[in-house]
């Protein structure tokens, strides 16, 4: 039996805006609950600081980046470290689809932040399934 590699879901985890917290929360939701065993995450900073284990993981896995804002730190840092991004999500895009939601808090998600995180997690989970099916 061949064991499939987990799909890596890597959030930006930006600490200055609610979007970074939403990206992070959605990632944990996917990796720990919705697709536990199929999806994994890693510390973006470890990768950028050239940690060997992190580099190897990224090089040998399909990566989904989750960025809070258009600055796209997760995607940019993954690409800069030699990783290939199989899919990307941005919290801001989800905000555009849900104009009535206004997440304001960073430390802990408010009600709108939680709603967005849940929606985002479901989208990421669906993409994990897709990439999982594609992998040999």
């Amino acid at each position, binding site marked *: 039996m061949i064991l499939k590699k987990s799909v890596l879901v*890597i*959030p*930006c*985890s*930006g*600490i*200055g805006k609610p979007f*970074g917290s939403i990206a*992070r*929360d959605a*990632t*944990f*939701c996917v990796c*720990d609950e919705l697709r536990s065993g199929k999806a994994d*995450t*890693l*510390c*973006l*900073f*470890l990768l*950028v*600081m050239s*940690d060997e284990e992190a580099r190897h993981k990224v090089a040998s896995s399909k990566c989904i980046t989750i960025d809070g804002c258009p*600055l796209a*730190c*997760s995607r*940019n*840092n993954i690409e*800069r470290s030699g990783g290939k991004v199989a899919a990307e999500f941005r919290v801001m895009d989800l905000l555009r689809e849900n104009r009535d939601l206004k997440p304001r808090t*960073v*430390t802990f998600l408010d009600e709108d932040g939680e709603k967005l995180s849940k929606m985002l997690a479901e989208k990421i989970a669906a993409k994990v399934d897709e990439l999982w099916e594609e992998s040999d």
Partner: protein
Amino acid sequence: MRIKPKVGVVSCSGECCGLGTLSRIATRLVLEELRSSQTVTICLPLFLAGEAEEHGFAKKYPTIEVDGCGKLCAKKAITKYSKEPAAGVNVEAILKEWNVEPPKNRRIFDENDMKMARRLAELLAIKVDEMRKAY
């Protein structure tokens, strides 16, 4: 009257475990509640992506790094791309000193985890005060 600079606080946000979340929450408590007008957040992903303002601030003003574990990503990043932080905290080592277990869940914190975060935030706040006194 000499104007004291703000202190930049840089947290790792290590997704691997609860220590990263603890670092992040403690940092945010300092920034939002305990020392809101004396501190500035340095967003590490932005910093690593080369954002000029994050780099500019870290080069000019004192910083405190808050690292979840002994890998010290925040410290290494700040040192590599600007200058060594003026102070730092290794959360894993501190928890060992305090003889407390790290948070079990990286997403949801219980009452004990929050007590730990507040205690850590108080420690960081003292470090901020010390750094500002030195100026």
